[in-house]
């Protein structure tokens, strides 16, 4: 029986476009792009009043005006026909934008309809449409556009249609996959159940959720259309009656701007294209970041340096020599631009040789953070703000990355929760185990490494023939066992098992736990066992550390925890857990959720949910009180001797 605290989020169909402006404003790239786009739109709309000359008339132009360099009269010089480049440039923006927007509109409508129809109706129709889309996607765009435009009359309308009719493939694919994702969501199924028609569902439930993606895609399609138009014009396939930027370049390039050195006639129109396309690119990039925010961090980013606490006196190791790991007053914070989350605060415990310590508490209580801090594997935002992790004569909290790399796996290894993703999908399992051995025991002959891998796999009940299989060929239980074999590969003294059985079914769970327990006895491992499962703790562990909201609630031997729990949280946890000796007892759950680590309550972190909280609990954080026999409790009740 595990404690279920997962919050069930209501599925409210809210379009991600709502409340979009606020985060967008903070996206520098998106804002710059938008401003650039607006500026060129203004230029295009007010072209007649902005342009100093009318590009349609050639009145008063003589042969002396050809390719004049920039001057007060012609800011950007004159072109091959003696016309003002600036004026041509200003009017040219209209062509680019018109073609871009209208062609993209056609593409988006076609792609949107095909995508939604394919995704929504599915079956044969979907198959047919997507096959067609894939075929069109493979056929190169521009040569086809060139061929069609060359065969038809070169007019702006034709160009718009040809670019529009060929540019929909990516849209169709994106819209289809989004439709598929939305289609099976609860609110769509609910709408269908109450008898809403297909059209209604598409327009009112699917379209609003597809729209944001469509907008981002539209921006890309517009920029591609603009690039295509300028290329067509540059190749001499533009509308001869309208001077677009591409056409200006075509004329300048063909009519001697190169040899006369008239750089202005070549640079200016091109900069216009770059300006528009870059504005769209930036805008699209910004929009995507806002609509689809990704954590811009990864595991190789350097973490924040440990805050050096007072020098730890290693000689004054207060317990006997059998202590492998001595964690003292460890605190970990997650720091980002906006806030600080105090994930772990002032936690201490000791791990002895061969000991199995259980680390329990609800999700979000800092258990995994604590383990990651021990291994110095905190994400980039995580920082050890105080305390020390003594391992042998070293303080792991302050080691350099290189020194720590030596201790990882060889001294302390870890079994991650959900081994599904903890193994690299494109390398064989055996290879991934061998890698650790080769790293920490360099020079070991290939054959020996190989034999060791097989031995390890056998140890966890996997036969040798699975050595060269890939993780996806393993079952969930096998992957977890392979992960255990991997964790044991370098004979570590300490193994951290971070919820190793969470995603597995009950039978497999039991097997894995039995395996861990037997390995502990066989190899003399010390294990830190992170779990929700109090039953496992009672059965296997020697001592228990109960965490709540990032702090130690109670830390004692397993007998003490089960027979004489002092912290109300421990007591409540035990009430939520069935006891076979008292079958008549009712199970109760703890109302509420663990505190958010960014907004911790002022006093005791458990106070808001504590059935016996009193005034002091909301104002003052309880100290860690050591009762007899290394029994540590952080509760005001203990101090006041008002133990229930």
């Amino acid at each position, binding site marked *: 029986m595990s404690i279920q605290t997962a919050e069930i989020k209501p599925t409210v169909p809210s379009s991600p476009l709502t409340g979009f402006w606020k985060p967008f404003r903070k996206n520098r790239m998106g804002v710059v792009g938008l401003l650039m786009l607006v500026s060129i739109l203004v230029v295009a709309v007010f072209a007649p009043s902005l342009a100093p000359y009318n590009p349609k008339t050639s009145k008063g132009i003589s042969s002396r005006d050809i390719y004049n360099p920039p001057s007060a009269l012609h800011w950007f010089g004159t072109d091959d026909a003696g016309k003002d480049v600036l004026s041509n440039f200003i009017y040219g923006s209209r062509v680019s934008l018109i073609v871009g927007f209208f062609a993209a509109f056609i593409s988006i409508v076609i792609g949107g309809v095909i995508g939604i129809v394919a995704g929504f109706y599915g079956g044969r129709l979907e198959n047919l449409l997507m096959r067609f889309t*894939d*075929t069109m996607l*493979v*056929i*190169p*765009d*521009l*040569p086809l556009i*060139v*061929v*069609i435009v*060359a*065969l*038809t*009359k070169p007019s702006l309308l034709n160009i718009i249609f040809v670019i529009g009719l060929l540019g929909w493939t990516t849209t169709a694919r994106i819209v289809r996959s989004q439709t598929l994702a939305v289609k099976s969501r609860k609110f769509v199924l609910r709408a269908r159940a109450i008898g809403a028609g297909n059209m209604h569902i598409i327009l009112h439930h699917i379209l609003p959720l597809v729209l944001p993606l469509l907008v981002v895609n539209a921006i890309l399609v517009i920029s591609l259309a603009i*690039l295509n138009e*300028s*290329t067509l014009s*540059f*190749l001499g*396939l533009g509308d001869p009656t309208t001077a677009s930027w591409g056409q200006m*370049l075509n004329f300048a*390039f063909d009519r001697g701007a*190169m040899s006369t050195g008239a*750089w202005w006639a*070549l*640079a200016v129109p*091109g900069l216009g*294209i*770059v300006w528009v*396309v*870059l504005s769209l*690119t*930036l805008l699209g990039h910004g929009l995507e970041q806002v609509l689809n925010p990704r*954590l*811009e*961090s*990864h*595991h*190789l*980013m350097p973490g924040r340096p440990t805050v050096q606490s007072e020098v730890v006196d290693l000689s004054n190791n207060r317990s006997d020599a059998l202590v492998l790991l001595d964690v003292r007053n460890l605190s970990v914070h997650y720091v980002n631009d906006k806030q600080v989350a105090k994930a772990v605060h002032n936690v201490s415990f000791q791990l002895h040789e061969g000991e199995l310590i259980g680390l329990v508490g609800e999700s979000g209580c800092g258990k995994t953070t604590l383990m990651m801090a021990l*291994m110095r*594997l905190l994400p980039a935002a995580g920082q050890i703000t105080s305390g020390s992790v003594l391992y042998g004569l070293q303080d792991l909290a302050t080691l350099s990355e290189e020194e720590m*790399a030596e201790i*990882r*796996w060889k001294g302390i*290894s870890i079994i*991650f929760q959900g081994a599904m*993703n*903890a193994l*690299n*999908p*494109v*390398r064989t399992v055996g290879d991934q185990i061998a*890698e*650790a051995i080769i*790293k920490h025991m360099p020079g070991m002959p290939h054959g020996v490494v190989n034999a060791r891998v097989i031995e390890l796999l056998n140890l966890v009940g996997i036969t040798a023939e699975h050595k060269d299989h*890939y993780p*996806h060929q393993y079952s969930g239980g096998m992957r977890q066992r392979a992960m255990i074999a*991997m964790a044991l590969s370098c004979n570590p003294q300490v193994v951290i098992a971070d919820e190793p059985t969470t995603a597995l079914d009950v039978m497999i769970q039991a097997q894995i736990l039995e395996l861990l327990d037997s390995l502990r006895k066989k190899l003399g491992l010390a294990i830190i066992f992170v779990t929700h499962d109090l039953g496992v703790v009672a059965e296997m562990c020697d001592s228990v550390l109960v965490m709540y909201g990032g702090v130690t609630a109670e830390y004692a031997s397993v007998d003490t925890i089960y027979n004489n729990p002092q912290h109300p949280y421990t007591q409540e946890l035990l009430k939520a857990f069935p006891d076979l000796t008292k079958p008549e007892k009712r199970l109760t759950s703890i109302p509420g959720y663990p505190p958010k680590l960014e907004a911790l309550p002022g006093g005791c972190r458990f106070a808001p949910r504590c059935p016996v909280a009193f005034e002091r609990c909301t104002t003052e954080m309880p100290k860690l009180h050591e009762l007899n026999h290394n029994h540590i409790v952080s509760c005001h009740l203990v101090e006041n001797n008002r133990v229930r």
Partner: protein
Amino acid sequence: MKRYRYLLQKIGWSAFTILFVLVLNFFIFRVLPGDPVKAGTHDPRFKKENQEAMRVRFGLDKPVINCFETLNPIKVGDCWINPFDTQFFIYLRNLIQGDLGISYHTNGPVSDILTVRLWNTVLLIGAGQILSIIVGIVFGLFAAWKARTAIDYSALITGLVAWSLPTFWLGIILLFWGSRHGFPIGGRITPGISSYPLSYQIGDIARHMILPTLTYTIVYMGEYLLIMRSSLMDVLSEDYILTAKAKGLSNFQILKDHALKNAMLPIVTIIAINLGFTVAGAIQIERVFSWPGLGGAVYEALERRDYPLLQGVFLLIAVSVVIANLIADLMYSYLDPRVQVE
């Protein structure tokens, strides 16, 4: 077993796409307006009987396909004619024999023109693609590795700007600059050096290639950079990277042995899809630098209304891109053991 089915499926799919391209290529030139014979010869002195002779020579006197005399304007014809005596069938038969028709301009076989041109384009695209892939991937790798640092932001901005550059314009600007700094002003080789030693000739071609290849590299590098960056960012936040770190591997080892292969998977697909765009780039670059390749052939065919040549180039380009996509799919299945039948 499953893998074979995957491969067969992909090969069958490509064959179908090529067939589609063949049919499209045939009908597009017959459905769209513009009589190729008239368009190819604007000369008013061109007599009617000569026009007819030309039609016969280019095979345009036959019905397009069963039931249709012509498609533009649509003229319904006899359905019960010998299908082997239609333009469509003759087109297919000629294709199988490697005959892509006769150029209006040179009066020689289109296939001869294309074979020469193809290698020039392969040389240019090959050099440009390889360089842009290497540069893009290396920059993208550093950007992702050093995420949220100045290196990352400058790489990102560089990528976005490079992506936004019109290929032909960048070519023009580089040519403008290069022609004033001793670079050749275009073409593939300086005329009249065929008697010079081979090493000199190769050096001359290399000198001619510098600017077009540079244009290519800059434009396409941007996209590879952006994709590599985001792909590697995704991979590096995967759980198995944390496992690798927990095992004590160094950052370099993790990148090399755990991240690169996985991050390269999307790149392989993009490279293939890009080949279509690459050809678009070739048309522009070869026009700017007067490079005698397929893209240049497109431009010349456009100027001279040489439809058989245009048709031939389009077919060659489209089929090459389809085959390149197939190769990418096969490579993907080799790189990713998880690939199975969809």
